[in-house]
């Protein structure tokens, strides 16, 4: 089956520092694929390369086997590649619904319209509402984002990405900073992501990784150390040594 997302020898060098080097990945449609690795392994750089926020020094990115390496980030979003951020990157002064409408209006091609009153964007509101319901945020439409609990703000991150109607969703440490008490809602949200959407997530929280990932790639010093099913990764002594810690 044609992979939904594929990279071939992807690398990024900052001067003499090789942040990511020779990364080749292939994610099947609907896959749940985790990328783990110690701090500084190049996980977020990899996400930035996939989304086009960084230009690669080498290698290529393919979406449904279409080469998207030279495309701008917004063009990749239009091709179905959306992301969340490791540190909340939201619109703190807007309400949840206002934020969602920003995403939905662009996704549906009405955000360029300078004459249409925003109050007439009913279809976009309906689409936004459906996503908020999926993430159990449907009571928070009118809440100002900055006033939401941190866990809910992380959910808004995911909701915004889903409003882009992605075929491939990149989650950059979705559980980062979420208190244990709020993590159940996040787990529920990740479990409830549409099955047709391919999900690549970078995560430190091994609970999430081993609960949701079907395959895991271990990144160390910018290069792939190993890749496999979660049970294989858990047993791999090299992974234990470099990432989980050896005794």
């Amino acid at each position: 089956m044609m992979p939904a997302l594929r990279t071939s020898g992807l690398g990024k060098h900052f001067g003499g520092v090789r942040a990511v080097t020779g990364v080749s990945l292939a994610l099947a449609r609907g896959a749940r694929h985790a990328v783990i690795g110690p701090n500084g392994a190049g996980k977020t750089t990899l996400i930035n390369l996939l989304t086009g926020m960084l230009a690669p020094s080498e290698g290529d990115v393919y979406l449904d086997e279409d080469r998207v390496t030279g495309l701008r980030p917004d063009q990749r979003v239009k091709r179905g590649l959306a992301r969340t951020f490791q540190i909340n990157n939201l619109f703190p002064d807007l309400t949840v619904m206002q934020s969602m409408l920003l995403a939905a209006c662009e996704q549906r091609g009405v955000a360029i319209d300078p004459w249409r009153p925003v109050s007439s964007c009913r279809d976009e509101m309906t689409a936004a509402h459906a996503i908020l319901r999926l993430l159990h945020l449907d009571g928070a439409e009118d809440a100002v984002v900055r006033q939401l609990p941190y866990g809910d703000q992380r959910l808004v991150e995911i909701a915004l990405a889903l409003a882009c109607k992605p075929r491939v969703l990149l989650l950059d440490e979705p559980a980062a900073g979420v208190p244990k008490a709020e993590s159940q809602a996040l787990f529920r949200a990740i479990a409830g992501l549409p099955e047709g959407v391919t999900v690549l997530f970078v995560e430190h929280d091994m609970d999430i990784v081993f609960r949701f990932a079907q395959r895991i790639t271990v990144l160390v010093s910018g290069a792939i150390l190993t890749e496999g099913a979660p049970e294989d990764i858990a047993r791999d002594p090299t992974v234990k040594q470099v990432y989980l810690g050896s005794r």
Partner: protein
Amino acid sequence: MSIAAPARTWAGRFPWEESAFWLLLAAGFWLWPKHLALASQVLIAGLFALSYDLILGYAGILSLGHAAYYGLGAYAAGLLATHRWGEPLSGLLAGACCAGLAGFLTSFLVVRGQDLTRLMVTSAIGLLLFELANRMANITGGVDGLSGMEMAPLLGAFRFDIYGRTAYGYCLIVTFVVFLGVRRMVHSPFGWSLRGMRDNPSRMLALGYPVQRRLIAVYTVSAAIAGVAGALLAQTTQFVSIDVFSFSRSADVMVMLIVGGAGVLYGGLVGAAVFTLAYHYLSALNPVYWQFWLGAFLIAIVLFGRGGVLGAFERISRYLRERRRAPAAQP
């Protein structure tokens, strides 16, 4: 579920306060009949500040060279009028087109960088045009300015009179029409996206917005509106000074917007009124040191009036509303 809450300014309705504001301006023919020329200057400055509000208040583009487009609009309309094309509306259109085209061409330079780069690039554009106008004195009149314009009657019926009645009506109608267009735009999905790009451009990129292209679009529109303001100035005063391109003109419009309140539509109009009237009356009191009081006022705005005059006004209104509500809530 409401899209208007809590940011009231996102709503698209036209409340009575706004109607009252424009009716007051329309009543200017009777309320300040001897000061119509000054009132026209206020409206022109307000329109210029409105154009600047689009890029600074809504899209977050800091500029110190917006006078470039104001000046281009003024010279375009002025040159047409000196070459026997004194029809006002087509002159206005020519001013808008020239300034809009220049805005579009220069926007590629402006939107590339961030705040400091943008300040440098925009002020450089202003300085370049100033010196160009100075150098091409055979066309622009150089430091002597452009004079000898002959304006045709507005709509073939209303002559520009010495009391400034036609000029005031003309400025008021043009300002109102442009304001309605801008108002419609900022309450559209496009207008919302401008705020998004101002507040968080990286997230907007991640939502699929071609941020630079949208900024180019709004910069071009803003330049065209600045051109309309410049053209109005040329047509109503029948003179264009090279000063329309000056750095201080660009700085003044920024001060007007900060004084009035950025990103709230009326901030530019209110700031222009405060600034122009302060200039007029304070400089009459003391032509040398009048800017001392303007400086003091600006410091007061920064310290106590975040959001400018309109921001302070809104806070005072909210305070009074809450005070009124407080005794009623007590048993």
